[in-house]
Protein backbone atom coordinates (compact mmCIF):
# COMPACT_ATOMS: atom_id res chain seq x y z
CA UNK A 1 0.00 0.00 0.00
CA UNK A 2 1.51 3.29 -1.06
CA UNK A 3 1.60 6.35 1.18
CA UNK A 4 -0.83 8.10 -1.16
CA UNK A 5 -3.38 5.27 -0.85
CA UNK A 6 -2.94 5.25 2.93
CA UNK A 7 -3.55 9.00 3.21
CA UNK A 8 -6.50 8.80 0.82
CA UNK A 9 -8.15 6.02 2.85
CA UNK A 10 -7.37 7.69 6.18
CA UNK A 11 -8.49 11.20 5.29
CA UNK A 12 -11.66 9.97 3.60
CA UNK A 13 -12.53 8.14 6.84
CA UNK A 14 -11.68 11.15 9.03
CA UNK A 15 -13.81 13.47 6.92
CA UNK A 16 -16.65 10.93 6.88
CA UNK A 17 -16.60 10.99 10.69
CA UNK A 18 -16.52 14.79 10.84
CA UNK A 19 -19.30 15.08 8.28
CA UNK A 20 -21.47 12.62 10.22
CA UNK A 21 -20.90 14.67 13.37
CA UNK A 22 -22.03 17.86 11.61
CA UNK A 23 -24.86 16.00 9.87
CA UNK A 24 -26.38 14.86 13.19
CA UNK A 25 -26.95 18.36 14.48
CA UNK A 26 -27.79 19.64 11.01
CA UNK A 27 -30.77 17.29 11.10
CA UNK A 28 -32.31 19.57 13.75
CA UNK A 29 -31.41 22.73 11.81
CA UNK A 30 -28.33 23.47 13.87
CA UNK A 31 -25.11 23.76 11.94
CA UNK A 32 -22.99 22.99 15.00
CA UNK A 33 -19.27 23.20 14.31
CA UNK A 34 -18.29 21.74 17.69
CA UNK A 35 -16.82 18.61 16.08
CA UNK A 36 -14.26 20.86 14.40
CA UNK A 37 -12.91 22.50 17.55
CA UNK A 38 -13.18 19.13 19.34
CA UNK A 39 -11.05 17.72 16.53
CA UNK A 40 -8.51 20.47 17.17
CA UNK A 41 -8.55 19.77 20.92
CA UNK A 42 -8.36 16.00 20.40
CA UNK A 43 -5.49 16.34 17.93
CA UNK A 44 -3.47 18.62 20.19
CA UNK A 45 -4.20 16.49 23.24
CA UNK A 46 -3.12 13.38 21.34
CA UNK A 47 0.06 15.07 20.13
CA UNK A 48 0.96 16.44 23.56
CA UNK A 49 0.15 13.20 25.39
CA UNK A 50 2.11 11.08 22.94
CA UNK A 51 5.14 13.39 22.88
CA UNK A 52 5.38 14.40 26.56
CA UNK A 53 3.67 11.68 28.55
CA UNK A 54 4.15 8.67 26.26
CA UNK A 55 0.51 7.62 26.47
CA UNK A 56 -0.64 4.67 24.32
CA UNK A 57 -3.16 5.55 21.66
CA UNK A 58 -6.13 3.79 23.27
CA UNK A 59 -5.71 5.93 26.41
CA UNK A 60 -5.38 9.02 24.23
CA UNK A 61 -8.75 8.22 22.62
CA UNK A 62 -10.37 8.07 26.06
CA UNK A 63 -8.66 11.34 27.04
CA UNK A 64 -9.74 13.06 23.82
CA UNK A 65 -13.35 11.96 24.31
CA UNK A 66 -13.28 13.31 27.88
CA UNK A 67 -11.73 16.61 26.76
CA UNK A 68 -14.29 17.07 23.97
CA UNK A 69 -17.15 16.42 26.37
CA UNK A 70 -15.69 18.84 28.89
CA UNK A 71 -15.32 21.66 26.38
CA UNK A 72 -18.70 21.11 24.75
CA UNK A 73 -20.80 20.65 27.85
CA UNK A 74 -21.15 24.20 29.10
CA UNK A 75 -21.53 25.89 25.69
CA UNK A 76 -24.12 23.30 24.70
CA UNK A 77 -26.40 24.32 27.58
CA UNK A 78 -26.55 27.84 26.17
CA UNK A 79 -26.43 26.87 22.51
CA UNK A 80 -29.34 24.47 22.78
CA UNK A 81 -31.85 27.28 22.69
CA UNK A 82 -30.24 29.28 19.91
CA UNK A 83 -31.58 29.49 16.40
CA UNK A 84 -29.95 27.80 13.44
CA UNK A 85 -27.98 30.77 12.44
CA UNK A 86 -26.61 31.84 15.79
CA UNK A 87 -25.10 28.42 16.48
CA UNK A 88 -23.00 28.38 13.34
CA UNK A 89 -21.64 31.84 14.20
CA UNK A 90 -20.99 30.97 17.84
CA UNK A 91 -19.24 27.68 17.13
CA UNK A 92 -17.24 29.25 14.29
CA UNK A 93 -16.11 31.90 16.77
CA UNK A 94 -15.18 29.17 19.29
CA UNK A 95 -13.20 27.37 16.59
CA UNK A 96 -11.21 30.51 15.77
CA UNK A 97 -10.74 31.21 19.46
CA UNK A 98 -9.28 27.74 20.05
CA UNK A 99 -7.00 28.35 17.06
CA UNK A 100 -5.86 31.72 18.44
CA UNK A 101 -5.21 30.34 21.94
CA UNK A 102 -3.12 27.50 20.52
CA UNK A 103 -1.21 29.89 18.27
CA UNK A 104 -0.16 31.87 21.34
CA UNK A 105 0.69 28.88 23.55
CA UNK A 106 4.35 28.01 23.19
CA UNK A 107 4.06 24.70 25.05
CA UNK A 108 1.76 23.50 22.27
CA UNK A 109 4.16 24.61 19.59
CA UNK A 110 2.58 28.00 18.88
CA UNK A 111 2.02 28.77 15.23
CA UNK A 112 4.55 26.13 14.14
CA UNK A 113 2.72 23.19 15.70
CA UNK A 114 3.92 19.88 17.10
CA UNK A 115 5.98 17.32 15.19
CA UNK A 116 7.48 13.84 15.38
CA UNK A 117 4.45 12.22 16.86
CA UNK A 118 5.12 8.45 16.97
CA UNK A 119 3.75 6.62 13.97
CA UNK A 120 1.60 3.54 14.30
CA UNK A 121 1.94 0.75 11.67
CA UNK A 122 -0.33 1.54 8.72
CA UNK A 123 -2.31 -1.68 8.72
CA UNK A 124 -3.19 -1.36 12.41
CA UNK A 125 -4.08 2.30 12.08
CA UNK A 126 -6.31 1.69 9.05
CA UNK A 127 -8.01 -1.06 11.03
CA UNK A 128 -8.55 1.25 13.99
CA UNK A 129 -9.83 4.10 11.78
CA UNK A 130 -12.29 1.99 9.84
CA UNK A 131 -13.29 0.23 13.03
CA UNK A 132 -14.35 3.61 14.39
CA UNK A 133 -16.09 4.44 11.11
CA UNK A 134 -18.09 1.21 11.36
CA UNK A 135 -18.96 1.67 15.04
CA UNK A 136 -19.93 5.33 14.70
CA UNK A 137 -21.73 4.62 11.42
CA UNK A 138 -23.71 1.94 13.19
CA UNK A 139 -24.55 4.36 16.02
CA UNK A 140 -25.64 7.05 13.56
CA UNK A 141 -27.73 4.53 11.63
CA UNK A 142 -29.44 3.29 14.80
CA UNK A 143 -29.97 6.90 15.91
CA UNK A 144 -31.55 7.79 12.57
CA UNK A 145 -33.88 4.80 12.67
CA UNK A 146 -35.05 5.15 16.23
CA UNK A 147 -37.55 7.30 18.06
CA UNK A 148 -34.76 9.86 18.49
CA UNK A 149 -34.37 10.05 14.72
CA UNK A 150 -38.10 10.59 14.32
CA UNK A 151 -37.92 13.28 17.00
CA UNK A 152 -35.12 14.92 15.02
CA UNK A 153 -37.30 14.89 11.92
CA UNK A 154 -40.13 16.49 13.87
CA UNK A 155 -37.85 19.23 15.23
CA UNK A 156 -36.48 19.84 11.74
CA UNK A 157 -39.99 20.25 10.40
CA UNK A 158 -41.14 22.68 13.08
CA UNK A 159 -39.52 23.23 16.43
CA UNK A 160 -42.63 24.47 18.18
CA UNK A 161 -44.86 21.69 16.89
CA UNK A 162 -42.26 19.16 18.04
CA UNK A 163 -42.28 20.76 21.50
CA UNK A 164 -46.06 20.45 21.69
CA UNK A 165 -45.68 16.77 20.81
CA UNK A 166 -43.65 16.32 23.97
CA UNK A 167 -40.14 16.37 22.48
CA UNK A 168 -37.68 18.14 24.77
CA UNK A 169 -35.91 20.08 22.03
CA UNK A 170 -33.23 21.56 24.28
CA UNK A 171 -32.27 18.20 25.72
CA UNK A 172 -32.19 16.60 22.28
CA UNK A 173 -30.02 19.44 21.06
CA UNK A 174 -27.58 19.09 23.98
CA UNK A 175 -27.32 15.32 23.53
CA UNK A 176 -26.67 15.60 19.81
CA UNK A 177 -24.11 18.35 20.30
CA UNK A 178 -22.20 16.28 22.86
CA UNK A 179 -22.26 13.20 20.64
CA UNK A 180 -21.05 15.31 17.69
CA UNK A 181 -18.20 16.68 19.76
CA UNK A 182 -17.14 13.20 20.86
CA UNK A 183 -16.97 12.08 17.22
CA UNK A 184 -14.92 15.20 16.49
CA UNK A 185 -12.48 14.42 19.29
CA UNK A 186 -11.99 10.87 17.97
CA UNK A 187 -11.45 12.25 14.45
CA UNK A 188 -8.82 14.59 15.87
CA UNK A 189 -6.79 11.75 17.39
CA UNK A 190 -7.07 9.76 14.14
CA UNK A 191 -5.89 12.86 12.25
CA UNK A 192 -2.85 13.51 14.42
CA UNK A 193 -1.56 9.93 14.37
CA UNK A 194 -2.10 9.66 10.61
CA UNK A 195 -0.18 12.81 9.83
CA UNK A 196 2.42 12.66 12.60
CA UNK A 197 2.21 16.41 13.16
CA UNK A 198 -0.36 19.07 13.92
CA UNK A 199 -0.51 22.82 13.44
CA UNK A 200 -3.22 25.38 14.22
CA UNK A 201 -3.83 26.61 10.69
CA UNK A 202 -5.21 23.21 9.69
CA UNK A 203 -8.34 23.85 11.77
CA UNK A 204 -9.49 27.08 10.22
CA UNK A 205 -11.99 28.32 7.69
CA UNK A 206 -10.91 25.86 5.00
CA UNK A 207 -11.73 22.82 7.17
CA UNK A 208 -15.08 24.41 8.05
CA UNK A 209 -16.06 24.97 4.41
CA UNK A 210 -14.75 21.53 3.43
CA UNK A 211 -16.85 19.64 5.98
CA UNK A 212 -19.94 21.74 5.22
CA UNK A 213 -19.43 21.03 1.51
CA UNK A 214 -19.28 17.28 2.17
CA UNK A 215 -22.49 17.38 4.21
CA UNK A 216 -24.35 19.59 1.75
CA UNK A 217 -23.04 17.84 -1.36
CA UNK A 218 -23.49 14.33 -0.04
CA UNK A 219 -26.94 14.79 1.35
CA UNK A 220 -28.16 16.77 4.31
CA UNK A 221 -30.88 14.40 5.44
CA UNK A 222 -29.26 10.99 5.12
CA UNK A 223 -25.99 9.52 6.34
CA UNK A 224 -25.17 7.52 3.20
CA UNK A 225 -24.38 10.39 0.85
CA UNK A 226 -21.52 11.46 3.10
CA UNK A 227 -19.75 8.11 2.63
CA UNK A 228 -19.62 8.75 -1.12
CA UNK A 229 -19.12 12.52 -0.99
CA UNK A 230 -16.06 12.39 1.27
CA UNK A 231 -13.73 10.34 -0.99
CA UNK A 232 -15.12 12.05 -4.10
CA UNK A 233 -14.39 15.55 -2.78
CA UNK A 234 -11.03 14.48 -1.38
CA UNK A 235 -10.34 12.95 -4.77
CA UNK A 236 -11.14 16.22 -6.55
CA UNK A 237 -8.20 17.81 -4.79
CA UNK A 238 -5.90 14.86 -5.54
CA UNK A 239 -6.89 13.88 -9.06
CA UNK A 240 -7.27 17.27 -10.71
CA UNK A 241 -4.82 17.71 -13.59
CA UNK A 242 -1.67 19.63 -12.65
CA UNK A 243 -2.76 22.81 -14.36
CA UNK A 244 -6.05 22.97 -12.47
CA UNK A 245 -4.77 22.23 -8.96
CA UNK A 246 -4.83 25.92 -8.11
CA UNK A 247 -8.54 25.94 -8.88
CA UNK A 248 -9.45 23.18 -6.41
CA UNK A 249 -10.79 25.56 -3.74
CA UNK A 250 -12.86 27.33 -6.37
CA UNK A 251 -14.14 23.96 -7.65
CA UNK A 252 -15.26 23.02 -4.10
CA UNK A 253 -17.07 26.28 -3.61
CA UNK A 254 -18.72 26.16 -7.02
CA UNK A 255 -19.87 22.60 -6.22
CA UNK A 256 -21.25 23.81 -2.90
CA UNK A 257 -23.13 26.72 -4.45
CA UNK A 258 -24.28 24.56 -7.38
CA UNK A 259 -25.66 21.81 -5.14
CA UNK A 260 -27.50 24.30 -2.92
CA UNK A 261 -29.09 25.91 -5.96
CA UNK A 262 -29.85 22.88 -8.10
CA UNK A 263 -30.41 20.03 -5.67
CA UNK A 264 -30.76 21.55 -2.20
CA UNK A 265 -31.15 18.29 -0.30
CA UNK A 266 -27.84 16.96 -1.66
CA UNK A 267 -26.80 14.42 -4.25
CA UNK A 268 -28.20 11.52 -2.28
CA UNK A 269 -31.40 12.35 -0.49
CA UNK A 270 -33.90 10.12 1.25
CA UNK A 271 -35.85 9.48 -1.91
CA UNK A 272 -32.70 8.12 -3.59
CA UNK A 273 -31.89 5.94 -0.60
CA UNK A 274 -35.43 4.54 -0.59
CA UNK A 275 -35.30 3.99 -4.36
CA UNK A 276 -31.97 2.15 -4.09
CA UNK A 277 -33.11 -0.02 -1.14
CA UNK A 278 -36.39 -0.87 -2.88
CA UNK A 279 -34.48 -1.64 -6.06
CA UNK A 280 -32.15 -4.00 -4.18
CA UNK A 281 -35.09 -5.69 -2.44
CA UNK A 282 -36.78 -6.16 -5.82
CA UNK A 283 -33.64 -7.69 -7.29
CA UNK A 284 -33.27 -10.01 -4.32
CA UNK A 285 -36.94 -11.00 -4.57
CA UNK A 286 -36.58 -11.80 -8.26
CA UNK A 287 -33.40 -13.76 -7.59
CA UNK A 288 -35.01 -15.88 -4.85
CA UNK A 289 -38.18 -16.35 -6.96
CA UNK A 290 -36.06 -17.49 -9.89
CA UNK A 291 -34.28 -20.04 -7.78
CA UNK A 292 -37.43 -21.49 -6.19
Amino acid at each position, binding site marked *: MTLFQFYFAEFSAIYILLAWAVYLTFRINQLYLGPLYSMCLGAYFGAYAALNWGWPFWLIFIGAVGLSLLFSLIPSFRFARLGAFAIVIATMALLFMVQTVIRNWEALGGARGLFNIPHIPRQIWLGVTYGFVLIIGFCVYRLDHSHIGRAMDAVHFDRDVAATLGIDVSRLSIQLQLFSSVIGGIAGVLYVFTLGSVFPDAFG*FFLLMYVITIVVFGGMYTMWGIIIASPVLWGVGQFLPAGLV*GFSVIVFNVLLIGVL*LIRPSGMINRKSVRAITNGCKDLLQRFTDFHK
Partner: protein
Amino acid sequence: MQAFISQLICGIELGSIYAVVVIGYNLLVLVTSILHWGYAHLLVLSMYVAWLVFGVTNNSLALGVSAAIVFGIMASTAIAPLFLPFIRRGAHLEGFVISAGIASIIVEIQSHWINYGLAIAFPPALLMGDTTIRFGMSTISAGRLLTLFVSIILMLAFFYFLNRSKQGRMLRAVAQDSVVARILGISVPKMSILSFALSGLLAGITAICLAVALGTAGPSLGDQLAIKCLSVLILASVGNLKGGLVCAIILGVLDSMIMGYLPGDWANTSALLVIVGVLMFKPEGLFGAKN
Protein backbone atom coordinates in the same frame (compact mmCIF):
# COMPACT_ATOMS: atom_id res chain seq x y z
CA MET B 1 -2.26 57.59 30.71
CA GLN B 2 -0.97 58.97 27.42
CA ALA B 3 -0.71 55.44 26.07
CA PHE B 4 -4.30 54.82 27.13
CA ILE B 5 -5.56 57.90 25.28
CA SER B 6 -3.57 56.92 22.19
CA GLN B 7 -5.08 53.44 22.29
CA LEU B 8 -8.52 54.97 22.80
CA ILE B 9 -8.11 57.20 19.76
CA CYS B 10 -6.79 54.26 17.77
CA GLY B 11 -9.81 52.32 18.91
CA ILE B 12 -12.23 55.00 17.77
CA GLU B 13 -10.48 55.05 14.40
CA LEU B 14 -10.81 51.27 14.11
CA GLY B 15 -14.41 51.44 15.26
CA SER B 16 -15.26 53.95 12.57
CA ILE B 17 -13.98 51.52 9.96
CA TYR B 18 -16.19 48.76 11.34
CA ALA B 19 -19.16 51.14 11.56
CA VAL B 20 -18.95 51.99 7.88
CA VAL B 21 -18.83 48.33 6.84
CA VAL B 22 -21.62 47.27 9.22
CA ILE B 23 -24.14 49.55 7.50
CA GLY B 24 -23.99 47.35 4.39
CA TYR B 25 -24.44 44.17 6.44
CA ASN B 26 -27.41 45.70 8.24
CA LEU B 27 -29.09 46.71 4.99
CA LEU B 28 -28.87 43.18 3.59
CA VAL B 29 -29.99 41.53 6.80
CA LEU B 30 -32.91 43.90 7.22
CA VAL B 31 -34.31 43.28 3.76
CA THR B 32 -33.28 39.71 2.91
CA SER B 33 -32.72 38.22 6.39
CA ILE B 34 -29.51 36.73 5.08
CA LEU B 35 -26.23 37.54 6.74
CA HIS B 36 -23.98 38.02 3.74
CA TRP B 37 -20.58 36.82 4.99
CA GLY B 38 -19.10 37.73 1.59
CA TYR B 39 -20.02 41.44 1.77
CA ALA B 40 -16.69 42.37 3.39
CA HIS B 41 -14.86 40.28 0.80
CA LEU B 42 -16.73 42.03 -2.01
CA LEU B 43 -15.71 45.31 -0.43
CA VAL B 44 -12.06 44.31 -0.40
CA LEU B 45 -12.38 43.13 -4.02
CA SER B 46 -13.69 46.62 -4.88
CA MET B 47 -10.57 48.00 -3.22
CA TYR B 48 -8.49 45.71 -5.42
CA VAL B 49 -10.37 46.93 -8.52
CA ALA B 50 -9.69 50.55 -7.51
CA TRP B 51 -6.00 49.65 -7.07
CA LEU B 52 -5.89 47.98 -10.49
CA VAL B 53 -7.49 51.03 -12.11
CA PHE B 54 -5.06 53.34 -10.29
CA GLY B 55 -2.23 51.26 -11.68
CA VAL B 56 -3.55 51.35 -15.24
CA THR B 57 -4.64 55.00 -15.36
CA ASN B 58 -1.59 56.51 -13.66
CA ASN B 59 -3.31 57.18 -10.32
CA SER B 60 -6.38 58.95 -11.65
CA LEU B 61 -8.46 59.46 -8.49
CA ALA B 62 -11.79 60.00 -10.25
CA LEU B 63 -11.48 56.87 -12.39
CA GLY B 64 -10.33 54.73 -9.49
CA VAL B 65 -13.12 55.85 -7.19
CA SER B 66 -15.81 55.42 -9.83
CA ALA B 67 -14.37 52.03 -10.82
CA ALA B 68 -14.68 50.82 -7.23
CA ILE B 69 -18.27 52.03 -6.97
CA VAL B 70 -19.35 50.66 -10.35
CA PHE B 71 -17.67 47.31 -9.66
CA GLY B 72 -19.31 47.14 -6.23
CA ILE B 73 -22.77 47.67 -7.68
CA MET B 74 -22.24 45.30 -10.61
CA ALA B 75 -20.69 42.48 -8.59
CA SER B 76 -23.29 42.67 -5.86
CA THR B 77 -26.16 42.71 -8.34
CA ALA B 78 -24.62 39.79 -10.25
CA ILE B 79 -24.41 37.71 -7.06
CA ALA B 80 -27.97 38.59 -5.95
CA PRO B 81 -29.81 35.97 -8.08
CA LEU B 82 -27.86 33.21 -6.29
CA PHE B 83 -29.60 34.16 -3.06
CA LEU B 84 -33.13 34.57 -4.42
CA PRO B 85 -34.28 30.94 -3.95
CA PHE B 86 -33.19 31.08 -0.32
CA ILE B 87 -34.80 34.44 0.35
CA ARG B 88 -38.03 33.10 -1.07
CA ARG B 89 -37.87 29.98 1.12
CA GLY B 90 -36.68 31.81 4.19
CA ALA B 91 -33.64 29.50 4.24
CA HIS B 92 -31.26 31.82 6.06
CA LEU B 93 -28.71 29.17 6.92
CA GLU B 94 -28.28 27.99 3.34
CA GLY B 95 -28.03 31.62 2.25
CA PHE B 96 -25.22 32.11 4.76
CA VAL B 97 -23.43 28.99 3.50
CA ILE B 98 -23.65 30.31 -0.09
CA SER B 99 -22.28 33.67 0.97
CA ALA B 100 -19.40 31.87 2.72
CA GLY B 101 -18.73 29.98 -0.52
CA ILE B 102 -18.64 33.24 -2.47
CA ALA B 103 -16.29 34.71 0.14
CA SER B 104 -13.92 31.74 -0.24
CA ILE B 105 -13.91 32.15 -4.02
CA ILE B 106 -13.09 35.86 -3.70
CA VAL B 107 -10.25 35.15 -1.24
CA GLU B 108 -8.90 32.48 -3.58
CA ILE B 109 -8.92 34.93 -6.52
CA GLN B 110 -7.16 37.55 -4.42
CA SER B 111 -4.60 35.06 -3.09
CA HIS B 112 -3.59 33.67 -6.46
CA TRP B 113 -4.29 36.00 -9.33
CA ILE B 114 -4.01 39.58 -8.14
CA ASN B 115 -0.55 40.87 -7.29
CA TYR B 116 0.64 37.29 -6.67
CA GLY B 117 -1.34 37.19 -3.42
CA LEU B 118 0.70 39.98 -1.85
CA ALA B 119 -0.82 42.97 -0.11
CA ILE B 120 -1.61 45.99 -2.26
CA ALA B 121 -0.73 49.58 -1.41
CA PHE B 122 -2.71 52.63 -2.47
CA PRO B 123 -1.11 55.73 -4.01
CA PRO B 124 -0.18 58.47 -1.50
CA ALA B 125 -2.36 61.02 -3.35
CA LEU B 126 -5.39 59.03 -2.23
CA LEU B 127 -4.14 58.85 1.32
CA MET B 128 -4.18 62.67 1.50
CA GLY B 129 -0.43 62.74 1.87
CA ASP B 130 -0.43 61.26 5.40
CA THR B 131 -2.03 64.33 6.97
CA THR B 132 -2.50 63.89 10.66
CA ILE B 133 -4.27 65.99 13.23
CA ARG B 134 -2.51 66.54 16.51
CA PHE B 135 -4.49 65.92 19.66
CA GLY B 136 -2.21 66.64 22.55
CA MET B 137 0.57 64.10 22.23
CA SER B 138 -1.54 61.75 20.09
CA THR B 139 -2.33 62.07 16.43
CA ILE B 140 -5.33 61.00 14.43
CA SER B 141 -4.85 60.40 10.75
CA ALA B 142 -7.07 62.57 8.62
CA GLY B 143 -8.06 59.53 6.61
CA ARG B 144 -9.55 57.75 9.58
CA LEU B 145 -11.35 60.85 10.79
CA LEU B 146 -12.81 61.10 7.30
CA THR B 147 -13.98 57.49 7.63
CA LEU B 148 -15.77 58.31 10.87
CA PHE B 149 -17.57 61.26 9.27
CA VAL B 150 -18.41 59.25 6.18
CA SER B 151 -19.92 56.50 8.30
CA ILE B 152 -22.17 59.01 10.06
CA ILE B 153 -23.15 60.68 6.77
CA LEU B 154 -23.80 57.32 5.09
CA MET B 155 -25.99 56.28 7.99
CA LEU B 156 -27.96 59.52 7.86
CA ALA B 157 -28.33 59.20 4.08
CA PHE B 158 -29.42 55.63 4.51
CA PHE B 159 -31.99 56.58 7.16
CA TYR B 160 -33.32 59.32 4.88
CA PHE B 161 -33.60 56.87 1.99
CA LEU B 162 -35.34 54.25 4.10
CA ASN B 163 -37.84 56.63 5.68
CA ARG B 164 -38.53 59.28 3.07
CA SER B 165 -38.33 57.59 -0.31
CA LYS B 166 -40.83 55.27 -1.97
CA GLN B 167 -38.23 52.56 -2.60
CA GLY B 168 -37.13 52.84 1.01
CA ARG B 169 -40.68 52.34 2.22
CA MET B 170 -41.01 49.28 -0.02
CA LEU B 171 -37.75 47.90 1.37
CA ARG B 172 -38.98 48.41 4.91
CA ALA B 173 -42.25 46.67 4.05
CA VAL B 174 -40.38 43.65 2.73
CA ALA B 175 -38.16 43.68 5.82
CA GLN B 176 -41.13 43.71 8.14
CA ASP B 177 -43.24 41.02 6.48
CA SER B 178 -42.43 39.76 3.01
CA VAL B 179 -45.70 37.85 2.61
CA VAL B 180 -47.89 40.86 3.29
CA ALA B 181 -45.61 43.01 1.15
CA ARG B 182 -46.18 40.60 -1.70
CA ILE B 183 -49.92 40.82 -1.19
CA LEU B 184 -49.65 44.59 -1.36
CA GLY B 185 -48.03 44.29 -4.77
CA ILE B 186 -44.37 44.78 -3.83
CA SER B 187 -42.12 42.45 -5.77
CA VAL B 188 -39.91 40.78 -3.16
CA PRO B 189 -37.28 39.52 -5.66
CA LYS B 190 -36.97 43.02 -7.13
CA MET B 191 -36.58 44.54 -3.67
CA SER B 192 -33.99 41.90 -2.77
CA ILE B 193 -31.97 42.68 -5.89
CA LEU B 194 -32.34 46.41 -5.16
CA SER B 195 -31.00 45.85 -1.66
CA PHE B 196 -28.02 43.94 -3.08
CA ALA B 197 -27.37 46.72 -5.58
CA LEU B 198 -27.57 49.31 -2.80
CA SER B 199 -25.21 47.27 -0.66
CA GLY B 200 -22.87 47.14 -3.65
CA LEU B 201 -22.98 50.93 -3.86
CA LEU B 202 -22.23 51.12 -0.15
CA ALA B 203 -19.42 48.60 -0.65
CA GLY B 204 -17.86 50.76 -3.36
CA ILE B 205 -17.98 53.94 -1.26
CA THR B 206 -16.74 52.06 1.81
CA ALA B 207 -13.92 50.55 -0.25
CA ILE B 208 -12.63 54.05 -0.99
CA CYS B 209 -12.99 55.05 2.68
CA LEU B 210 -11.03 51.98 3.74
CA ALA B 211 -8.39 52.59 1.11
CA VAL B 212 -7.91 56.07 2.57
CA ALA B 213 -8.05 54.85 6.18
CA LEU B 214 -5.87 51.75 5.88
CA GLY B 215 -3.67 52.51 2.88
CA THR B 216 -3.22 48.80 2.13
CA ALA B 217 -5.31 45.71 1.59
CA GLY B 218 -4.57 42.00 1.48
CA PRO B 219 -6.42 38.73 0.85
CA SER B 220 -6.99 38.21 4.58
CA LEU B 221 -8.59 41.63 5.10
CA GLY B 222 -12.01 40.34 4.01
CA ASP B 223 -12.06 37.60 6.65
CA GLN B 224 -10.86 39.95 9.37
CA LEU B 225 -13.46 42.59 8.53
CA ALA B 226 -16.19 39.97 8.29
CA ILE B 227 -15.52 38.52 11.72
CA LYS B 228 -15.25 41.97 13.33
CA CYS B 229 -18.47 43.17 11.69
CA LEU B 230 -20.22 39.96 12.64
CA SER B 231 -19.34 40.58 16.27
CA VAL B 232 -20.60 44.18 15.98
CA LEU B 233 -23.87 42.93 14.50
CA ILE B 234 -24.35 40.32 17.18
CA LEU B 235 -23.46 42.71 19.97
CA ALA B 236 -25.83 45.34 18.64
CA SER B 237 -28.63 42.97 17.66
CA VAL B 238 -28.64 42.24 13.96
CA GLY B 239 -30.41 44.89 11.93
CA ASN B 240 -30.10 47.71 14.43
CA LEU B 241 -28.45 50.65 12.67
CA LYS B 242 -27.81 53.07 15.51
CA GLY B 243 -26.76 50.27 17.80
CA GLY B 244 -24.38 49.12 15.09
CA LEU B 245 -22.54 52.45 15.10
CA VAL B 246 -22.21 52.53 18.88
CA CYS B 247 -21.12 48.90 19.14
CA ALA B 248 -18.61 49.33 16.32
CA ILE B 249 -16.87 52.04 18.31
CA ILE B 250 -17.02 49.93 21.49
CA LEU B 251 -15.49 46.98 19.69
CA GLY B 252 -12.86 49.11 18.02
CA VAL B 253 -11.77 50.44 21.40
CA LEU B 254 -11.79 46.93 22.91
CA ASP B 255 -9.73 45.68 19.99
CA SER B 256 -7.10 48.37 20.30
CA MET B 257 -6.87 47.91 24.08
CA ILE B 258 -6.25 44.19 23.65
CA MET B 259 -3.71 44.80 20.91
CA GLY B 260 -2.00 47.48 22.97
CA TYR B 261 -1.85 45.79 26.35
CA LEU B 262 -1.76 42.04 25.74
CA PRO B 263 1.42 40.49 24.37
CA GLY B 264 1.12 37.99 21.57
CA ASP B 265 -1.06 37.58 18.53
CA TRP B 266 -4.56 38.11 19.96
CA ALA B 267 -5.83 40.06 16.97
CA ASN B 268 -9.36 38.75 16.64
CA THR B 269 -9.89 37.64 20.22
CA SER B 270 -12.10 40.55 21.23
CA ALA B 271 -14.46 39.97 18.35
CA LEU B 272 -14.62 36.22 19.00
CA LEU B 273 -15.11 36.62 22.75
CA VAL B 274 -17.89 39.12 22.16
CA ILE B 275 -19.64 36.78 19.72
CA VAL B 276 -19.49 33.77 22.01
CA GLY B 277 -20.29 35.77 25.15
CA VAL B 278 -23.25 37.61 23.68
CA LEU B 279 -24.69 34.49 22.03
CA MET B 280 -24.35 32.51 25.23
CA PHE B 281 -25.77 35.07 27.63
CA LYS B 282 -27.77 37.66 25.72
CA PRO B 283 -28.55 36.32 22.24
CA GLU B 284 -30.77 39.25 21.32
CA GLY B 285 -27.82 41.64 21.62
CA LEU B 286 -27.38 44.83 23.63
CA PHE B 287 -30.03 46.80 21.76
CA GLY B 288 -32.37 44.02 20.80
CA ALA B 289 -35.70 43.00 22.24
CA LYS B 290 -36.22 39.48 23.56
CA ASN B 291 -38.67 37.66 21.31
